[in-house]
């Protein structure tokens, strides 16, 4: 283990190298580009014995990973925002085909209008595609989570997205402990045989048209229809609720650092108000909780590390009998509310000791989110709570209403 000053993108690339990815295909987009540049350099210089395919688009980047993963290779790609949207068809394909691909999503705002800065609208827009989604708080967690992601993906045959905030993490230097290749090798064995059989001696047609209903094979055995396959996919995805913490624990054994598995918690013990978010906001919220405590408010922070599958039980457990959960979303389901906020409300619905759940939208298109903004939003929420507001429309933090004419 050595400690180095590196950006989030460096941390991601370093993890991919340590994980011995065999096929890498990616297409540049701000703020993800340095990941591609670094990996291609290592492959060219012979430092990373992998196939690097310099594709002409993100759709092709994920297609290359799909092809490579189907024949058993460990495959990696990374993208952001419009690049992620451009590969949407293949995001669904990779999941439905049950391929353990790992993809870093360097969170950036979606166009139009153009904006290269951070929010989480991109990855949130594909949360329903059947991937595991993990969100990172800082550069160290990016390195650790990216390495862990391969283990998670390969154990349940479901692809994993490692999401981290553009610029705030991707381009920000932090001290990062880099485990040795031997430590990572001990944690992450080579990929075992894929589910897919691509052998001349045992020809199979992988992923053909699949009828709605189960159908008999040539030997008369009933095989699943589309809906059964989807149910099995969902069951495998749900296994991540056990596998993500288990892998985090194995990582902790191998390198001595853990991230709490599904959720990260801070000052939760006696907290009445719990500040909830995913990504780098979580680091900020730990500081906000301290600020509020200094003001006499019993505040804590809860970070969602694993957003898909949604850790409903873990959240119910942590939030039972609190007065208020305030969710900060860097995304919006337009016409509704923040995605994490909506999911949390559904998870807590009608449980004993259900807290009030309020949502706040913040940081879209890289709008600076200061600690004071976050703290003030919490103070406002507390006064709404005291005023007896049970259901509150999402508030927009730091919105300059005067400019909206």
């Amino acid at each position: 283990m050595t400690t180095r000053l590196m950006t989030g993108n460096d941390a991601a690339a370093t993890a991919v190298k340590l994980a011995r990815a065999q096929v890498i295909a990616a297409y540049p987009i701000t703020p993800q580009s340095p990941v591609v540049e670094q990996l291609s350099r290592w492959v060219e210089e012979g430092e990373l014995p992998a196939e690097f395919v310099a594709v002409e688009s993100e759709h092709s980047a994920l297609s290359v990973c799909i092809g490579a993963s189907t024949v058993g290779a460990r495959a990696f790609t990374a993208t952001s925002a419009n690049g992620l949207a451009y590969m949407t068809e293949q995001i669904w394909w990779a999941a439905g085909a049950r391929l353990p691909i790992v993809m870093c999503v360097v969170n950036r705002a979606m166009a139009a209008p153009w904006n290269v800065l951070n929010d989480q609208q991109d990855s949130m827009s594909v949360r329903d595609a059947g991937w595991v989604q993990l969100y990172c708080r800082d550069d160290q967690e990016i390195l650790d989570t990216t390495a862990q992601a391969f283990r998670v993906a390969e154990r349940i045959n479901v692809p994993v997205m490692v999401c981290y905030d553009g610029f705030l993490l991707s381009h920000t230097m932090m001290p990062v402990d880099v485990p040795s290749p031997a430590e990572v090798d001990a944690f992450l064995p080579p990929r075992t045989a894929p589910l897919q059989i691509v052998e001349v001696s045992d020809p199979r047609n992988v992923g053909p048209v699949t009828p709605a209903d189960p159908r008999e094979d040539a030997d008369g055995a009933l095989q699943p229809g589309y809906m059964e396959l989807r149910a099995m996919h969902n069951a495998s995805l749900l296994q991540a609720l056990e596998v993500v913490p288990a892998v985090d624990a194995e990582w902790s054994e191998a390198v001595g650092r853990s991230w709490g598995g599904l959720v990260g918690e801070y000052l939760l013990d006696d907290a009445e108000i719990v500040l909830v978010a995913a990504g780098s906001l979580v680091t900020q919220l730990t500081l906000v909780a301290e600020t509020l405590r200094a003001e006499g408010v019993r505040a804590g922070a809860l970070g969602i590390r694993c957003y898909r599958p949604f850790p409903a039980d873990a959240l119910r457990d942590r939030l039972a009998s609190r007065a208020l959960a305030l969710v900060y979303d860097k995304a919006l389901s337009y016409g509704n509310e923040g995605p994490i906020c909506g999911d949390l409300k559904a998870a807590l619905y009608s449980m004993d000791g259900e807290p009030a759940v309020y949502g706040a939208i913040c940081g879209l298109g890289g709008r600076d989110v200061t600690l004071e903004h976050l703290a003030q939003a919490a103070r406002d929420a507390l006064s709404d709570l005291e005023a007896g507001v049970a259901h509150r429309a999402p508030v927009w933090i730091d919105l300059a209403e005067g400019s909206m004419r």
Partner: protein
Amino acid sequence: MTRVSELSTTEYLLSGNRACAGCGLGIGLRAITKALDGKMVLVNPASCLTVLGGMYPISSLDVPWINVAFPSTASSAAGVRAGLRAMRREGEMTVLAMAGDGGTADIGMQALSGAAERDDDFIYVCYDNEAYMNTGTQRSGSTPAGARTTTTWTGKRENPKDVPAIMEAHGIGYIASTNAAFPTDVYDKVLKARDRRGLRYIHMNTPCPSGWSFDPKDTVKLGRLAVDTGVVVLYEIEDGVFRLTGRSASLAKSGKPLVPVAEYLAAQGRFRGVSDETAAEIQSWVDARWAGYGARHTPVG
């Protein structure tokens, strides 16, 4: 040139599949799989070929097959190849990407262009039935002028894209044009492609009785007529050297004029009602292409 009697009797295309009676694709696919002796993995996007391949859990082709998304044939195949190489398995099988004309000339063009520019190591076969047949005979970039489709009700106005020429502009080492009605021509070209490296592109015209509206018994006749009229020209371009092959080479050598295109048009329902003016335009398009190919032809020897 391989003779019919020399073709392998092993069948990889299985009977009782879902293709229409008289489908030209079936004839071509038999020749292709024989040429590769089954040591291949088929990478295939949505198309009639997918339907021919059958619904889960039964496959109509006795070779490994990977279904991929419609626009992603070439990129997925590049990934399969990269994956096999990373696994040190590249010697086990030829990667054969095979898409329809829509999946090639239109939605798959970007990925194909990328793979060609990188000279990725696989064979790409475009089987050209000249429309989106799988979705109900809509026009494609490869539909010929005059043809009626379900999105060109009065006949398409534009000539088809010349995909082999686009591939040639990428500077790849092997490009061929063939027709499924000539299984030995298909076979020889796939055999040649098999033994080369880099991206190899084969454009195979496949007469389609359902989409072109002719009697299924005439599939091979139509393929032959396409060649005799110069609508389809059999050739290959090896390392930049252009050569007519098979029946097209014999035609050129004989010096005889091409059969008038009108005969080809009259044989298919899709050209019913084509105006004399359009027919004349198609004829001059064919003549100009034929003259161009003739000028480039380098006889063997």
